[in-house]
């Protein structure tokens, strides 16, 4: 599956004979090894869900945030090297503040993604730098244009999605997401589905404990990106846990 670079993988400034930039591919590996992150674009907003794998018993609940706000109206969920993620998010915030200062309107999602993608791409062409080991899912909602969801990968390329998954359980998550009729579902419904997908792709054997982080942006939040409120979060978590138990019961019945 993964071929050894054998000499063509020492810097991002080199192609391999078969036309691959190995450093970028290795950066993608860093993303693949991180906890799952999914985002779904519904009819009136975007919901983000993160599987935060807990490695220590001393971990403080609610810390180590994986979803960030870029300006008030854009949410970003990150997967990969979290320190690289912070650097990218800070750059995105600067871009958003700068755009607002110049044009006196909030930055459109596509513009922000292009700028951030351009910035991340910069680190993939020079031998003296390494690429960002993060994939960022960005989402927004406004009255005029409705919801939008985009993904930026370590290569700096941006794509728009209705539903997106990155990280460990992305294959399974994508299968689950494809089953949903997202364009007809509201954020309130999607919050529960996102929690359910995260719980179902979580690997109990490899990573014992995880914390679920849910955030949303849409009509219900008036276009502000926020963490899902406690009561809705608990409701979603319960739904996800019950769905998991139901599927476990099905297995034992057999």
């Amino acid at each position: 599956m993964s071929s050894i670079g054998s000499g063509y993988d020492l810097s991002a400034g080199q192609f391999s004979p078969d036309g691959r930039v190995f450093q970028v591919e290795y950066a993608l590996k860093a993303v693949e090894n991180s906890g799952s992150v999914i985002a779904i674009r519904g009819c009136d907003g975007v919901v983000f869900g993160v599987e935060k794998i807990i490695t220590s018993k001393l971990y403080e609940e609610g810390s180590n945030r994986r979803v960030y706000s870029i300006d008030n109206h854009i949410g970003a969920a990150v997967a990969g090297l979290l320190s690289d993620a912070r650097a990218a998010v800070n750059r995105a915030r600067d871009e958003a503040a700068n755009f607002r200062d110049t044009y006196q309107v909030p930055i459109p999602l596509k513009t922000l993604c292009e700028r951030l993608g351009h910035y991340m791409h910069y680190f993939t062409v020079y031998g003296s730098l390494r690429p960002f080991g993060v994939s960022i899912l960005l989402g927004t909602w406004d009255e005029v244009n409705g919801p939008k969801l985009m993904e930026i990968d370590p290569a700096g390329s941006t794509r728009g999605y209705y539903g997106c998954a990155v990280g460990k359980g992305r294959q399974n998550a994508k299968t689950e997401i494809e089953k949903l009729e997202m364009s007809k579902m509201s954020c309130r419904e999607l919050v529960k589905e996102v929690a359910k997908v995260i719980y179902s792709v979580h690997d109990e054997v490899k990573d014992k404990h995880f914390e679920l982080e849910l955030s949303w942006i849409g009509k219900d939040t008036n276009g502000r990106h926020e963490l899902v409120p406690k009561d809705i979060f608990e409701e979603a978590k319960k739904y996800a846990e019950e769905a998991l138990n139901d599927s476990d019961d099905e297995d034992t019945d057999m």
Partner: protein
Amino acid sequence: MAGLFSNNLHVPKNVDMKDRVADFWRTDAETDPIKHTLRPIVTGTSVLGVKCVDGVVIAADTLGSYGSLARFRDVQRLMKVNDSVLIGGFGDYADFQHIMKLLNQHSIDDAVIGDGVYRDAPSIHNWMRCVLYNRRSKFNPLWNTIIVAGKTYSGEPYLGYVDKIGVSFEDKSVATGFGSYIAQPMMRRALEENPNMTCAQARVLMARCLKVLFYRDCRALNRFQIGTVTSDGCEISEPMSTDTDWSIGANPSGYE
């Protein structure tokens, strides 16, 4: 005396002697290649503020004067910074818009951190003082007096004043411009008679003070907004007016 000392030694001056002679009596601010604020252009008049037991009330009219012309009559001079701070701006309106833009970015920066903590009124007041004093020290002031009204982190009401020259203080009642001559005595007497004023009473007081200011201040307008900060949050009212009685102006003694 203009021309005899320079506040900016490192800027190359135009060496043409003819020009230099003509410029001799002008200030450095006028002749420097880097321009400095010389005078305000579109201005707002008085901003008033009163601290109450249950919050703070500030008020300002909605006029942007262009010298003696009452040019822009629907101007917002009160701004909500966040749920615990309001500011009012007196003086140059373009400079106030710049300050509003900076404060708006502060609110966004506070919001994205996502820990629910926002800069409170004393913090904004101090930041405002730093900015205004710094600009005045560079001889390029933001030509404003800013009233900062709001709550401290512990919920206490707070009312502050910062000047274009960096003068900054807190008080139970504050006013800028004409207001400090006409409205301030009215507000002080009202607070003396009723030290435990509530926000509702303060709003009535503001309307009365603004009415007197409209009678006496040539750069005032009878259309104003009142902003209130309480434990429930901040709100700025819709523009309103008071009834005025100009009949006493019909026969002033000495002008028959």
